[in-house]
């Protein structure tokens, strides 16, 4: 038994995207509800058709959403453990409910509002525990400080350079500049990149994703039912989450064996995802790669088999991830230059590409890879296809 090919994303909805804190006085719950309403409308359904929720990263309050939106009954409400690593994987959670008959129309939703707590300093906001004592004492205030430790080791081991990181940032910015939904509109060149303040050496300002507000929701249903709905269905060819112990708590542990340390923790995800979808990296037409930090995009390109381990820097430097390249990546500007909604914009853009409605449309795109994370497990991956 497998979920592969049995479900589809039939609706996508999003709020406008805002710079950090600028969505106030709207509440986060309100943003989430707006995205859900938009997603069901996009599918040609109503909120009353929703009977399930599949969340990640602690999710939202299902009964409050039901109370607010007038959803009469749910038969499924579940959350993947972990954080942003589960964004792509939540679609698999929804699919498992649908394939097993536990629900028919499942909402996957993510939303952020950084009015009070900046994600850039989130690790300093964790409650002190015996575990946090082993990294808090070193002054690792934000995730950027932690990922910088991984980035430097990748440079040391493989000769990856800041110019390689820059290419990820420049490519994303180029896609964002004229994209109607993207937040960052100022052109970015290599000189500007190299002159930017180092926030966590070897990572500079432009290696960090945005801090933004907004919400994105998806309506997941059976492939059969999706065929009768308003939009051309986008089939879930495969969706997996998890990871191995070598990666484990990763950032909060830092004792990954060397080969895992220089990865993004996605080798097991890639293996299981391609197997489930019956595809190989060569079958992927566009990839929407979770880009909280540029070096992690390079490591994911390696983990997902688009190039050899250690070759990610050269792969991006070749122009491969530009929108005219062999693997157009983050065609909406991604989280570095588009908006950071905890991985959800990547799924939205993949759906747009496969519907043929993307702003920077990849000619003839029939398959798209979406990744979540890299973070403390679970990591996750999703392959969508247009049938």
């Amino acid at each position, binding site marked *: 038994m497998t979920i592969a090919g049995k479900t589809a994303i039939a609706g996508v909805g999003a709020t406008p995207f805002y710079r950090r804190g600028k969505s106030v006085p709207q509440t986060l719950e309100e943003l989430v509800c707006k995205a859900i309403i938009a997603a069901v409308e996009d599918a040609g359904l109503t909120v009353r058709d929703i009977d399930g929720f599949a969340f990640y990263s602690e999710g939202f309050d299902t009964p409050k959403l039901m109370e607010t939106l007038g959803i009469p009954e749910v038969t499924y409400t579940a959350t993947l453990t972990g954080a942003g690593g589960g964004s792509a994987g939540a679609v698999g959670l929804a699919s498992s409910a649908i394939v097993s008959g536990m629900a028919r129309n499942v909402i996957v939703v993510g939303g952020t509002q950084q009015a009070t707590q900046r994600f850039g300093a989130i690790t300093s906001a964790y409650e002190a525990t*015996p575990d946090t004592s082993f990294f808090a004492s*070193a002054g690792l205030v934000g995730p950027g400080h932690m990922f910088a430790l991984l980035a430097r080791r990748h440079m040391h081991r493989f000769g990856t350079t800041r110019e390689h990181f820059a290419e990820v940032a420049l490519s994303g910015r180029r896609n964002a500049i004229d994209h109607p939904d993207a937040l960052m509109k100022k052109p970015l060149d290599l000189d500007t990149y190299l002159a930017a303040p180092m926030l966590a050496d070897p990572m500079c300002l432009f290696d960090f994703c945005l801090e933004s507000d907004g919400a994105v929701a998806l309506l997941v249903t059976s492939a059969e039912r999706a065929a009768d709905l308003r939009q051309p269905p986008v089939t879930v060819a495969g969706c997996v989450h998890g990871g191995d112990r070598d990666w484990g708590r990763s950032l909060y542990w830092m004792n990954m064996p060397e080969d895992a340390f220089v990865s993004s923790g996605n080798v097991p995800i890639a293996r299981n995802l391609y197997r489930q979808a019956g595809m190989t990296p060569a079958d992927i037409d566009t990839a929407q790669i979770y880009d909280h930090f540029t070096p992690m995009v390079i490591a994911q390109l390696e983990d997902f088999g688009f190039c050899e381990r250690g070759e990610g820097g050269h792969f991006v430097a070749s122009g491969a991830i530009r929108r005219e390249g062999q693997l157009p990546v983050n065609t909406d500007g991604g989280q570095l230059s588009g908006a950071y909604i905890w991985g959800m914009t990547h799924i939205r853009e993949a759906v747009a590409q496969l519907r043929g409605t993307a702003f920077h449309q990849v000619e003839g795109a029939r398959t798209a890879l979406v990744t979540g994370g890299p973070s403390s497990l679970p990591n996750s991956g999703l392959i969508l296809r247009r049938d």
Partner: protein
Amino acid sequence: MPGPIAKRPLESLFELVTDKWTAPFWEAARERRLVAARCAACGRFRMPPTPFCPGCLSQELEWPTLSGHGRVYSFTVVARAIFPEMEACLPYVPALVELPDAQGLRLITNIVDVAVTDISVGAEVEVVWDERADGVVVPRFTLTASG
């Protein structure tokens, strides 16, 4: 001309909390001894210490005293304040230090008291001890003089 010297991160970022599995590390630190958890049954090191050995599931732990010598596995330089209170502590250098006498186990720590530009991956380091106002003692590392 040497660049700026690596300082220590803001003390208030860190509140020590322990449980029975982690307390021996911090108790030894008060005595200026660098220790690491080792499974008493199979000899496998693990940090942070957890209630079971992931190799053999034994709960017996030993805390051998280590030499305090290690190697920089990776590091970052924090030179910008995420919030204003950090300003006086910049720059500081979070680092992973690999401990050869603990099966290559890594500690998440800081490199201190040396020019930031002298720090490199693979550099030999040795432990130094920082006693805070609240009596908590924190192991940090500095470049070994001969290294």
